């Protein structure tokens, strides 16, 4: 059941959001620490980037 006092994160924990696994939000502390490599990115399903090395330098 959702209540008015719930934050958007609490309300959306477990919701189907493309590219994100929001089930992880059920166990997060009330407010994440800002800054750092992982801030706000725990629920990303995929590593952010793919690619990199140019083929001509193999």
């Amino acid at each position, binding site marked *: 059941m*959702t209540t*008015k006092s*719930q*934050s*958007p*994160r*609490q*309300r*959306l924990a477990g*919701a*189907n*959001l*493309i*590219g*994100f696994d929001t089930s992880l*939000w059920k166990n*997060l502390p*009330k*407010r*994440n620490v*800002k800054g*750092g*490599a992982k*801030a*706000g*990115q*725990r*629920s*990303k*399903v*995929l*590593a*952010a*980037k*793919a*690619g*990199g*090395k*140019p*083929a*001509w*330098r*193999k």
Partner: protein
Amino acid sequence: MNHAGDKLSEGRRWSAKIAFEPDLLAFEPSSRRALAMDQRIRDGLAQSLATICTALEDSMDLPLPNVDRLLGRIRAARVRPAVFALYTKLVQAIELDDAGKIARLAAELSDPMLLEPTDHRIITLASKPLGNDLSARYCDILDDDSAVPLHLHGVTKQQLHDGAAGIQSALGLLGTRDSEFADEIKALGHEIVLVMPPLGSPPFGGVTTFYLWGAMFINPMAPSRVAMLEALAHEAAHLLLFGMTMGSAMVENSDAERYASPLRTDLRPMDGIVHATYVLARLTYCAECLLRSNDLTPAERDEVTHARRVNLRLYHDGLQTVREHARFTEVGRMAFRRCVEAYPLP
């Protein structure tokens, strides 16, 4: 009730469906499949944004008057990667429970820029049409791993001009032999952003991310049109896998498990190994297309022959690692199987 008639019409419906819907997991290129994938991802994006907006209106009393227009536009036609960028930042702000940031980003959902038409374009960072703010957002999304920073920057006007010409020439070369392949690359990466790393950085050819769906970041300094085509085919293959899996992982292996990559010197998670191996099969396929072309110069033919040999060997290396260690998701297994059917181990 006429069951025979029902079955017949059901059969016709399925036939029509099969005839209409392209094979989404096929290894062979298809521009129609790329567009169908884009539609599926846009449907998922619209549904996700609608879910978020409902939650924001309920829990923050945040009025979002124009969002239906955006959602309708997302469902109806291709949108710029800027829309996916905004969605990504909004989800991250929600994860952080940052009410101020959530409100600012939610207000951006009414920005008419998001509704602009999306012809194929080649652009760069920190200048029009992206501008500084959107460029910074793109870089922030790409550069989320402080262990492997890219610090990409825009290119000069001349590099943009030359890079765009190089891309057109490379895709033109491929198009003479396999227009479906060239059109698929353009459909998957309809916004090509020319970028370069800082001086002294490790070699960089290009990069893509699911979180900027539709964008392809390419280094314009490829030394030949064959090398440029490899960079484009490389990034398009990543986008293809993102589209096939709808932004889910190819494997269930933990990110903490690391394996030798056929394309990089650092150890990589299995999802990266599967991606790299698939990319190498696609590059081999691309080389084989070019070798059937009459438009290659003798030097280019040598270059492509060499590239095909190297890529096929690296593909076999990757395939061995995948076979030994990958624990596929269902869609990952089905997608990768099609690749192995095209290029089995000798």
